[in-house]
């Protein structure tokens, strides 16, 4: 059906959609969204076709590269515009175009009342194209284009309603936090070129064996900085909660299922660096562990349903990052959790959007309650996602999260016990905040005002939720059945000898995880189902709750350490420039010219003073030459 050239269609179709819809303007308002959805769907079909072609080839022939043209070629710095489709990138292609298309469909209904729906779909298509470039580029520099491309799309979509100043600020914050991460990516590429002479994945992988540990560690740490920006990991996590200002389908697609997982992709893609740089790898684990707790704790205190889900996303990506720092055994599990999370978290975000739709855009869960009766389908699809994220067997999260906890424990020594425990505890807290969310929203009795009229959403909204719910149920089993995903990805990684560190058998770990989950659920049940819930947030809470509500002071920290000193520096420089730099030069000028007549030039003296200057110049010129040639 397609030859390898169809790789370019993957990106080209949505890119055309974005460009066309933006340039065509209001004229195509009536059908622009249909076009965008069809183009996204077509990219999905191309992806599926590529997947089957790939699966039919022998494992060693599965990766294909398509060179489009020579992009930058200066001296020894040669970078092609080239696409690489291998076992790893096809997973992302299917996730991006599959979930992406579902969210296009959902948005047709969700955004139907927005007068700028066409522009919204243009941005969605732009995002799909950029995200595909991110995962298909065959070099760090190609990836970089997609990397900032998705950042741009994210910025545009967070600020889609930027007539509200707070939303505009949220979009700016996201862009700038991401740029800090991008600095890391820039430096990683520079170090790679200076030390290895190449920036392509294949080239760096090949040369990494000849490089010193120091260089690889530096590259690894810089890549990790990039990942923390894009994937909202500690310490660059503060933007994600604010990013919920974007329309809910955006939160589902970009800030849950795809873009924010790009950091995990980057680390797994750079396995050859991290495998050879244990220090960087350890840092990856630490960052992942910190963030998974950080997000989980924040999640326990949020009353805004979208912000609670965002905190959860941060935490779940923490799991993925942690897994990707565990070496070859961890990579596949990081990707597996990334895929299952893509289903259940996108599904729950869409569910939250459906609830908001039926509740006049209310997001405060304290003003929900008992919604299951009015929105049964939303309740069921959301509930399946909930069971999946909890890790209840046989739902998707059980397979993927359990494997991460297990691998963490088995990574050996004190480190293994420590991070294993963190992952285990995180699972318990996850169960608590997700149960809290579930109970506050769907269970109990209504706490909303009488003017609200909760109703089930339309078919186009429910269909994508239903499909994602199926994924929440089945994807974990399918991906782990017969080690399917592990075997599929294994040719990409250098598997080391399995060192057996089984401090306890897998069944014990699974049981422990379920105990923690049950405890988290029980606590939530006791606090929110068995006792009355106020429709305003209580104020007489512990210092811990206050800290969690304030996102563990992440914004306060950034403001105190970066923003205010930065503003002070800017102010100082501005006044220094006027007074000192400009003043000094003016002073010298006045002194040199004497009375400063020239600076006091008036309207009438304008031409005269110029003529005088020219005259002086000309005389000195002639005099100088005359002196010289004598």
């Amino acid at each position, binding site marked *: 059906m397609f030859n390898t050239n169809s790789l370019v269609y993957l990106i080209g179709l949505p890119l055309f959609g974005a460009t066309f819809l*933006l340039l065509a303007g209001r004229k195509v308002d009536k059908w622009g969204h249909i076009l965008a959805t069809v183009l996204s769907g077509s990219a999905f079909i191309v992806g599926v076709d590529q997947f089957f072609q790939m699966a039919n080839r022998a494992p060693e022939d599965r990766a294909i590269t398509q060179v489009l043209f*020579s*992009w*930058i*070629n*200066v*001296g020894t*710095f040669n970078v092609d*515009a080239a696409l690489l489709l291998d076992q790893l990138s096809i997973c992302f292609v299917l996730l991006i175009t599959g979930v992406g298309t579902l969210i296009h469909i959902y948005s047709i209904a969700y955004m139907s009342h927005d007068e700028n729906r066409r522009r919204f779909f243009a941005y969605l298509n732009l995002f799909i194209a950029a995200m595909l470039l991110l995962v298909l580029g065959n070099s760090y520099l190609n990836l970089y*284009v997609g990397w900032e*491309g998705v950042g*741009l799309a994210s910025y545009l979509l967070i600020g889609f309603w*930027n*007539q*509200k*100043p707070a939303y505009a*600020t949220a979009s700016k914050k996201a*862009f*700038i936090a991401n*740029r800090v991460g*991008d*600095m890391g990516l*820039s430096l990683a*590429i*520079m*170090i790679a*070129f*200076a*030390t*290895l*002479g190449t920036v392509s994945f294949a080239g760096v992988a090949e*040369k990494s064996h*000849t*490089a*010193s540990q*120091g*260089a690889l560690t*530096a590259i690894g740490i810089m890549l990790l900085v990039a990942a923390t920006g894009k994937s909202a990991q500690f310490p660059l996590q503060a933007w994600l909660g604010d990013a919920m200002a974007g329309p809910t389908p955006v939160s589902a697609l970009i800030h849950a299922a795809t873009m924010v997982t790009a950091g995990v992709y980057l680390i797994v893609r750079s396995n050859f660096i991290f495998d050879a740089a244990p220090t960087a790898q350890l840092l990856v684990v630490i960052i992942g562990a910190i963030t998974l707790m950080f997000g989980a704790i924040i999640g326990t205190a949020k009353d805004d349903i979208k912000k609670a889900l965002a905190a959860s996303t941060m935490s779940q990506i923490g799991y993925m990052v942690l897994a990707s720092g565990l070496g070859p055994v961890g990579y596949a599990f990081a990707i597996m959790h990334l895929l299952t999370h893509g289903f259940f978290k996108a599904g729950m975000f869409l569910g939250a959007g459906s609830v908001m739709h039926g509740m006049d855009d209310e997001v405060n869960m304290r003003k929900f309650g008992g919604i299951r009766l009015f929105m049964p389908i939303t309740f069921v699809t959301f509930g399946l996602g909930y069971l999946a994220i909890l890790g209840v067997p046989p739902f998707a999260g059980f397979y993927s999260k359990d494997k991460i906890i297990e691998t963490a424990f088995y990574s050996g020594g004190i480190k293994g016990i420590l991070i294993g425990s963190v992952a285990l505890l995180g699972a318990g807290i996850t169960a608590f905040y997700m149960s809290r969310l579930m109970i506050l929203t769907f269970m109990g009795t209504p706490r909303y005002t009488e003017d609200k009229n909760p109703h089930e959403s339309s078919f186009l909204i429910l269909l994508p939720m239903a499909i994602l719910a199926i994924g929440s149920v089945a994807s974990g089993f399918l991906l782990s059945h017969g080690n399917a995903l592990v075997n599929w990805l294994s040719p990409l990684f250098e598997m080391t000898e399995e060192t057996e560190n089984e401090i306890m058998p897998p069944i014990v770990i699974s049981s422990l995880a379920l105990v923690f989950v049950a405890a988290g659920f029980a606590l939530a049940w006791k606090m929110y189902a068995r006792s009355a819930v106020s429709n305003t947030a209580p104020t007489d809470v512990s210092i811990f709750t206050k800290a969690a509500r304030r996102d563990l002071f992440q914004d306060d920290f950034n403001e105190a350490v970066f923003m205010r000193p930065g503003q002070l*520096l*800017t*102010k100082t*420089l*501005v006044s220094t*420039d006027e007074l000192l*730099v*400009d003043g000094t*030069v003016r002073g010298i000028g006045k002194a040199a*010219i004497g009375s400063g007549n*020239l*600076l006091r*030039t008036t*309207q009438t003296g*304008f031409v005269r003073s*110029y003529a005088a*200057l020219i005259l002086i*110049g000309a005389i000195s010129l002639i005099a*100088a*030459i005359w002196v*010289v*040639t004598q």
Partner: protein
Amino acid sequence: MNYLTTLMLLPILGAVLIALLPKSQGLFAKYAALVTTILVAVLTVVMAREFIRDSTDLQFVESYDWIKSFGIKFAVGIDGIALVLILMSVILTPIVILAGWNESEGGRWSVKTFYILILILEAMVIGVFAASDVFLFYVFFEAMLIPVYFLIGGYGSGARTAAAVKFLIYSLFGGLLMLASIIGLYVISGQQGDHTFDLQTLSTLQISSTTQNLLFLGFFIAFAIKAPLFPFHTWLPDAAAAGTPGTSVLLLGILDKVGTFGMIRYCLTLFPDATKTFTPVIIVFSVISILYGAFLAIGARDIKRLIAYTSISHFGFITLGIFAMTTQGHSGATLYMFNHGFSTAALFLVAGWMISRRGSSTISDFGGLQRITPVMAWSFFLAGMSSLALPGLSSFVSEFLVLVGTYTRYPAAAIIATFGIVLAALYILIPVQKALHGPTSPGNENLSDLNLREKIAIAPVMAAIVFLGFYPAPLLNVINPIAQHTIAQLGFTDPVPTNGGK
């Protein structure tokens, strides 16, 4: 065909034609200027197609005796760098005329004078990039000031006279230093052979290191004022804010490039040893410029001054690339000059349209333009993205080449310069948020969107920014050979991969 002299004569002819018109024929003067500059652009493209890419010699060489007794020749010829900069200049000039169709009205002098000045300026810009006689270069370098001085002082706004005089004094000061150096060179050439101003001959002179250092500084300070580099920059924001938007494009986009072009063509070629002596200092000042300009841009309240400050930051990148002495840095710097011309033109022209509609250049006077004037807002946004070097746009390629080329030789400088990309996000997104986002603030409700003429003017600039972001090869193919040659002449080779010292 004598391309280069023809290219210089064409605008002069146009200027003469316009001068002969009666003052009432302002509209005709506009069309005459537009047609002339388009012809110049077309002819330059024709010339560029005949350019031999792989040659590092000067091409389209012409030489005529001018002042025989002093050995001064009217000698011109271009290499890849000069070609790229001339191309940029002649493409931007008609765009500036079309974009600022009404800028010429309401000035101190008549409409036609405005276009005479622009056309004379264009001829001199071509001359300054093409000159291969140092004296001829100096004449163009100084004479260029005249039309700009009158354009700012006669057609600008605000404190235009003060700004014009400040610009002139700075430039004349630099020019005097350069003149002293040129005379010094002339004397030395006389001691070692015939008196001459020929660049090629002068570059073979044997000069003692102290003398070389002094002569180098004379040239370099003149260029650092023009470029401008910290701490010689304070004239630029005043001049850019006072000039008409079109004038500011010519000033920041084209004229300032003479500074960085001069560094390559004159400082590096004439004084290789002094270049090496001063390189560390210049690298430091480049990095300071990058950060300093960015911080001032972040703190700017006036949109024209903001763009001027971003240019100081960008010029820091260009000098960093030039003095990193690697192929990537050098090619990147030259490409940067071209790209900066286009992205600054885009920013300044759109800002100019915003200012003329709103009647204010204070950023906080704007608000919510995205919903009132979507095309104008989008143009500003895209120009801003180009200024912050978003990957996929042309400025990314040049900025990254400069950074990677610097890193291989001066990693610390490259690392500090990389902070510039975060600051760039701030200085672009802050005005974007204030002017384009948020609710519509009073005074903006009735602004009109871009008209057809303005759309036609901005479209090619945007197209170039996007196209060259994905496919910079047409320019890089012309720049690379001469960049490699320049580096090699100075005795540098690109650092080889270090493997991190293993």
